């Protein structure tokens, strides 16, 4: 479990750092994807701490997060942007919102990004 925790912490930070770099380069679609991935790594870490398990798919993740409504709502709110990021231009404002959400979920998983 500790090894898995370490990996999730590392990926949450790495994606967040890469997202911040992309944001500074005005590459907003990439930033949205990376911040969302950071958010998901933190959400999975949260689930690992609370349930001892990590989800195997987005469906599984949504089902597990239903018991933790505040995180579920953030993931559910932001997931469509991740899905749309292939074919819709994302804005700076959106990337910043998802960055803040990633930081909020990291806080709930008791890590700092």
């Amino acid at each position, binding site marked *: 479990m500790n090894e898995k925790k370490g990996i999730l912490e590392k990926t949450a930070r790495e994606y967040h750092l890469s997202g911040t770099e992309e944001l500074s380069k005005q590459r907003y679609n990439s930033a949205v994807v990376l911040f969302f991935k950071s958010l998901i790594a933190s959400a999975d870490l949260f689930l690992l701490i609370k349930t001892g398990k990590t989800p195997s798919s987005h469906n599984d993740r949504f089902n597990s997060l239903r018991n933790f409504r505040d995180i579920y*709502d953030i993931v*559910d*709110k*932001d997931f*469509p942007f991740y899905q749309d990021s292939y*074919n*819709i*231009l994302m*804005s700076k*404002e*959106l990337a910043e*919102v998802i960055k*803040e959400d990633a930081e909020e979920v990291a806080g709930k998983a008791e890590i700092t990004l």
Partner: protein
Amino acid sequence: MQKKSQEKQKLLFNENIIDVVQFGSSVIKEKPVNDIDIAVIYKKISLKEQLNHSQKIKKQLEKGFNLPIHIKSFDLYSLFDKGNFAREGILFYGKSLITKEYFVKLFGLIPKIHFTYNLSDLDKKDKVRFNYLLNGKKGKYGLLREYGGKIIAPGIIEIIPEYEKIFFDAMKEITPSLEMKKVFLS
């Protein structure tokens, strides 16, 4: 049974919301539906606030529909942005869940579909069939009466967008010479 239209349920929304609009396949009769597309149109507030309010609206709507809800947030700038691929669907087909009217009525417009057909190449039997289809036969309603359409000129009928597929499929079965135009009336 799938619930494609919201059951009577009072939607609680805040003063920054201009409208909550259902669009996509769920507002077109007889289209296969896998999910419910909703657009929430906001006055100028921050994107973060828009997304948070939309999430609350989504939770309310989930009680009224039993299909997955896909919710999108717009202000009037992002709604009309050329990068918004849902723009036409929202403006032409979108129906307000607040007023139950077409969303564009807010701008003084009424969406209509004009079908232009040409029966000249059909044999007499099919011309009669086409006439029965539109106008009915022996007391049975035709499509025009059943779905509130009307003939506006010889060979042109006008209907509301939600019956597009019903009319198109039925008429196409008899005549291949059929054109559809989307128009806004004021």
